[in-house]
């Protein structure tokens, strides 16, 4: 510190500029590593991947690669498989995220109070998130299998189903399997993030409200929900985006079948890319998915900004 002290006294102008540069550069220094890594490792392949959407890329044909403009997108518009996959994606994403969120929020509310055994309960209910998705899919496929799993028998005994057949084999009910598996796996995510947000709400707000005579539900609606809303917006956004692009559970449990009844856009992309070996067309589907998700993200973020503004 001593020498620095002397130097700065003899060169005030240079160090002033240097200081301003340092202050200006500070945020960039902190965010640079992430930025560089993401640009190099993700954005470069992503742009390459997106560029395939405008070219004819057949995976095993080294002579392919010619520019085809919007041909793939034209083909996509007429593709009934894509439309079916899009419809399934809406159901899959909507049901998975909504139910994960609701059950996760309820769990967070339950864990938000101190009670004996809370630490243990908390540790146990968060465990599903630690299981690899491949294993989750396999485990639940096993559970739904009438030969080796208990669920068909129980569902039949509870009169929820008409028979003990595997609901993964029926196109009308096949999507339920992966949805249930994703709910099981995803509840901890929402429980953890909501619990964290709940814990940051000052307790005296609730105390004041109950002194004023407000019921539990009214407190929830007027205190909890508004303060939770910004966090909810981000977590729901991220989770929706992940679920929409995530075909692992479906591929493991039903492989998109039977008869494409569980084929979502993400698994359709896989089929086109690695069965038809048409990377150009697959990229165009991915590009469309990207645009749809981006629009959705913009909508959520504007909603969030609205809620934050309304709060303050």
């Amino acid at each position, binding site marked *: 510190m001593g020498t620095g002290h002397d130097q700065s006294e003899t060169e005030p102008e240079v160090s002033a500029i240097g200081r301003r540069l340092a202050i200006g550069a500070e*945020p*960039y*220094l*902190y*965010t640079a*590593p*992430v*930025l560089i*890594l*993401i640009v*190099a*490792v*993700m954005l470069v*392949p*992503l742009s*390459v*991947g997106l560029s*395939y959407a405008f070219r004819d890329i057949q995976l095993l044909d080294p002579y392919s690669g010619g520019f085809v403009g919007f041909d793939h997108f034209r083909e996509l518009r007429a593709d009934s498989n894509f439309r079916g996959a899009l419809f399934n994606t809406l159901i899959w994403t909507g049901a998975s995220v909504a139910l994960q969120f609701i059950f996760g929020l309820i769990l967070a509310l*339950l*864990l938000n*109070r101190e009670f004996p055994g809370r630490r243990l*309960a908390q*540790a146990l209910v*968060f*465990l*599903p998130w*630690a*299981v*690899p998705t*491949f*294993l*989750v899919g*396999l*485990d*639940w496929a*096993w*559970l739904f299998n009438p*030969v*080796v*799993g*208990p669920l068909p028998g129980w569902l039949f005994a509870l009169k929820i189903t008409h028979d003990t057949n595997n609901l993964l084999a029926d196109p009308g009910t096949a999507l339920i399997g992966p949805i249930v598996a994703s709910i*099981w796996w995803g*509840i901890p995510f929402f429980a953890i993030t909501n619990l*964290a*947000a709940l*814990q*940051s709400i*000052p307790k005296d707000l609730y105390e004041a409200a109950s002194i004023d005579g407000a019921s539990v539900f009214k407190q929830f609606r007027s205190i909890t929900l508004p303060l939770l809303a910004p*966090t909810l917006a*981000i977590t729901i956004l991220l989770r929706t*985006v992940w679920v929409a*692009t995530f*075909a692992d559970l479906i591929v493991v449990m039903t492989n998109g079948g039977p008869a494409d009844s569980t084929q979502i856009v*993400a698994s359709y992309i*896989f089929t086109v890319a*690695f069965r038809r070996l048409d*990377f150009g067309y*697959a990229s165009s589907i991915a590009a469309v*998915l990207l645009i749809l998700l981006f629009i959705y*993200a913009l909508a959520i973020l504007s909603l969030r900004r609205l809620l934050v503004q309304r709060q303050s």
Partner: protein
Amino acid sequence: MLRRTLYWSSHYLLIGLYVVFALFPLFWLIKVALTPNDLLYSEGIRLWPSRTSLEHFRFVLAHSEFPLFFRNSLIVSSGTAVTVTLISGAAGYGLSRFSFRGKPLLVALMLITQMFPLVMLVAPMFRLLAPLGLTNSLTGLVIVYTAFNAPFATFLMQSFFDAIPKELEEAAMIDGATRFGAFRRIILPLTLPGIAATGGFVFTAAWSELLFALMLNSSSQATTFPVGLLSFVSKFSVDFGQMMAAGVLALIPACLFFLAVQRYLVRGLTAGAVKG
């Protein structure tokens, strides 16, 4: 009094249901792993086999390359967790404390990287990493996983830092400390639990990643355990018993790690709230 009893009994009932729901599939995994092959199908539906056996576990530990895959996964996941925590911690701090030109762009970029189906990135990424010698290597996986997890980790870390008032380090800086010094000495200890939680999320994400571990690496020296699980599905026999045993073994570190860090999450944010 009656209302309190009613409230708490329904509270415990619901918690109990959640615990059962969370644990039952895991119980089933363990049950299958302990069922000898000949009873696997004939006693499939029973809640517990008439005879248990450790044969699957013994096989997985002694005969397969599973211990090697386990070690590889440990290296990759820890490496990823540490790297992500470092760079996302820095970036999250930057996003929390500063508003600067390009901030919305950075946020948008990070969001976009989450929206592209990863399966389409495999081929370009392979082409990018192969000439650098980063395919068939654990380092390559760490780099890729870090890039995947950094956006979410950054947002998480940002929210942890947001919970701590800026005044804390500003007060320290007025007293003559540098920003980084204040960060290290004051802010970091407060968010240590949050950092642990982020590390936990990232560790489990890297631990269970399958697609890129499968596509980028081929030699068994660089194979991680999820890919190793696939090797139990072969044309000669699907050794579900062995696969479940391997799965159970692999769950243990992920679960332990997760158990250890998840309680910090709540504690961490409570600390921030008290200050606020």
